[in-house]
């Protein structure tokens, strides 16, 4: 196992991402973008790709990426989570890119990954359906072999950035098992409906497939294994985002409690608040240790990744939401207003908790995975 401490290069990466987001994607901008359909500032997305190389950070150089590891990507995700960045990073650089990297399809990797790495293409992975299950084995969307290709019939829902993605990787059932397909956003027979979301910074869509022509990625029946890897990696990626959000919401609470006075004292001097914030620090620091450990495990392809993925997603979900809710409580009335940013973290915390399965779901998976 590599060292758990961050290297100087990693700290430099963190600083540059943080500065970039503070400058180009502050919360005032997040608020404007969350009112739009795709939630993305094209200029910021392009600059993130062309100048900072963020979308391709964990994509190998042979596919146009920067060739760093998941440990570096986790740092980027943490900063994006702290800033409540609303663009399609998790969908494109994590879900879709990991699916392609996990497949055995060298041609598809060469065709599709370079544009994902540069940010030119926004991709996503459509695997959930109306039943809301995170378990790929419940997939109903049907894939049929045609003369020289495939046609897809059915639907997908809760698709992250499904309304704005140009490339959609679709999980379907073929005669032969779960299989992965690629579909262009402009394909005939594809209808996309953007879904209003609880967390306006997280864009979801429902997709209808009516005889949509698709390209098979990998081979028929190999998508169950691909999805195992994608979902574990994505759970840890989301946990890194949740860590960033939790830390930021926590910092807001601490700072406010130092300046807000009631009864002639800063409210942070009251043990009722001080002790709760000490507990919150313990949670956030525990989450940080767990995310660092998990990110290193993914970077090294450790066997224990499935166990750690569910461990860390369950813990991150509870921690971020707890801290975000406490942040509002510590702010009191002002924290309940639309103008204050606290509710943005509350909503992101709740949506991140539910997305990819909540703490209860992941604890059950953890129980199975440690052979309980």
């Amino acid at each position, binding site marked *: *196992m*590599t*060292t*758990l*401490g*961050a290297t100087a290069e990693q700290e430099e990466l963190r600083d540059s991402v943080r500065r970039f987001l503070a400058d180009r994607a502050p919360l005032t901008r997040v608020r404007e973008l969350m009112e739009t359909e795709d939630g993305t500032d094209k200029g910021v997305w392009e600059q993130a790709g062309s100048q900072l190389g963020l979308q391709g950070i964990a994509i190998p150089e042979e596919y146009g990426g920067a060739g760093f590891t998941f440990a570096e990507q986790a740092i980027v995700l943490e900063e994006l989570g702290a800033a409540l960045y609303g663009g399609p990073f998790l969908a494109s650089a994590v879900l879709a890119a990991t699916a392609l990297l996990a497949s055995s399809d060298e041609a598809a990797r060469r065709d599709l990954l370079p544009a994902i790495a540069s940010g030119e293409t926004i991709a996503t992975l459509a695997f959930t359906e109306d039943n809301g299950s995170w378990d790929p084995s419940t997939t109903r969307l049907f894939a049929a072999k045609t003369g020289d290709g495939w046609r897809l019939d059915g639907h997908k829902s809760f698709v992250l950035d499904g309304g704005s993605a140009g490339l959609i990787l679709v999980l379907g059932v073929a005669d032969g098992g779960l299989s992965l397909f690629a579909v262009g956003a402009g394909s005939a027979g594809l209808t996309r409906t953007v879904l209003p979301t609880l967390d306006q910074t997280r864009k979801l869509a429902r997709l209808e497939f009516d005889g949509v022509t698709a390209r098979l990625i990998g081979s028929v029946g190999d998508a169950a294994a691909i999805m195992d890897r994608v979902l574990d990696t994505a759970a840890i990626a989301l946990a890194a985002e949740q860590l960033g959000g939790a830390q930021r919401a926590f910092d807001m609470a*601490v700072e406010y*409690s*130092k300046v807000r006075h009631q009864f002639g*004292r*800063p409210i*942070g*001097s*009251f*043990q009722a*608040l*001080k*002790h709760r*914030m*000490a*507990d919150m*620090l*313990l949670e956030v*620091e*525990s*989450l*940080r*240790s*767990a995310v*660092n*450990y998990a990110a*290193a*495990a993914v970077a090294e392809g*450790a066997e*224990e990744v499935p166990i750690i993925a569910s*461990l860390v997603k*369950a*813990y991150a979900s509870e921690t971020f939401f707890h801290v975000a809710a406490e942040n509002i409580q510590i702010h009191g009335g002002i924290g309940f207003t639309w103008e204050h940013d606290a509710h943005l973290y509350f909503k992101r915390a709740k949506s991140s908790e539910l997305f990819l399965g909540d703490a*209860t779901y992941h*604890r*059950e998976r*953890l*129980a199975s995975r*440690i052979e*309980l």
Partner: protein
Amino acid sequence: MPQPEDRSDAYLAAREAALGWLTVNWDPQLSVRAWWARLADSGWGFPTWPEDWFGRGLSADAAAGVRSAFLEAGALPPPASLGQQLGAPMLLLHGNAEQKARFLPPLARGEESWCQFFSEPGSGSDLASAQTRAVLSEAGWTVDGQKVWTSGAQWADRGMLLARTNRDVPKHQGLSFFVIDVGQPGIDVRPLHQMNGEHGFNEVFFTGAHIDDDRIIGEAGDGWSAAVTVLMYERFMASLPTAMPGRKAGQLDEPAGAAVQRAAQARSSGRTGVSELVIDVAARLGESGDPVLRQRLAALWATETINGYLARGGLSDRESRRPSAHGSLTKLARSELVRAGRDTGLSVLGAQGLLQDPAVPGGSEIRHRALSSPGASIAGGTDEIQRGIVGERVLGLPKEPRTDRDVPFRDLTIGTQRQAP
């Protein structure tokens, strides 16, 4: 689970050097007394002490490397009463030359065991409110009062005593720090029975106990600073199970080889993680399929696993977080784990949990841990004190206003007194 190798150069270098010395010098045929004397002369017994005083001036990190060398070599670790762990560092900072020369050699060689007379019935978290008094006369100091939670007092040759020598000044300014001989008529050591049936601690009554005038550490009224030193070291205390030092325990003349085997047994017992224990008992009772219980078992396993990550890596590379704060956080994390282990463990036992000796392997261990659980969040600074430390020293939150700093001690109400005497 893979163990991250996250060891510093200092750790590795100290480990290797100590291992080299131990390989040549460890001899299980020696008596404990002779082995510890040899160890004291080498500086490897107490590597953080200065070179002039039985040490090597190494960092705490390097000392951890030395400890691992003892395990690797299978050698008997150095003596580890509170005298060696807390008394010596306190003497090195606050003792005068004569006191160091008198007390450090027998501590280094394990000829003495010390205990700590700090807590009192009326002074738990608020240690500086100690009421035990020491009065100076021509014959020396005379001590009257009561201490509590003194571990090892029944074996101790001497004790570190925090006593009040002036009631007319604010409480922190009227305390003095002494080294007192335990085996004297004015000191009565009685076992203290805990709610789990054990008696690991004592209560100690002082009735006209005597201290020579030259056993005060620093000046009269300066005792709090030495006490703070002891408390600071207490948070970082790390030692390996070993033989008991001191004349009363009677282990000095045993062969060191026999002592190291007993220590190794002490190390291996009680090592099982609580989640492993509880999960194992759940499986034996055929309860692992219950979905609600599975949630709790997985949560317990997760808490213990994440605590491990936190203990190894958390905060270490964040410049705003100091190690003392890390100690408070891991202690809070431990309290939470102990509570979760208690509740999940007893739920797993169900009706069997009603019994003194549950009829399932591991059941008695769960019961014992459950009845010991409150200790984790009280001993060594309550959870509430730890949260205060974290809130004020790490997060920089403003302090609670205090009413006890600027008034004479005699005007304060202490413990459960109805009013100040």
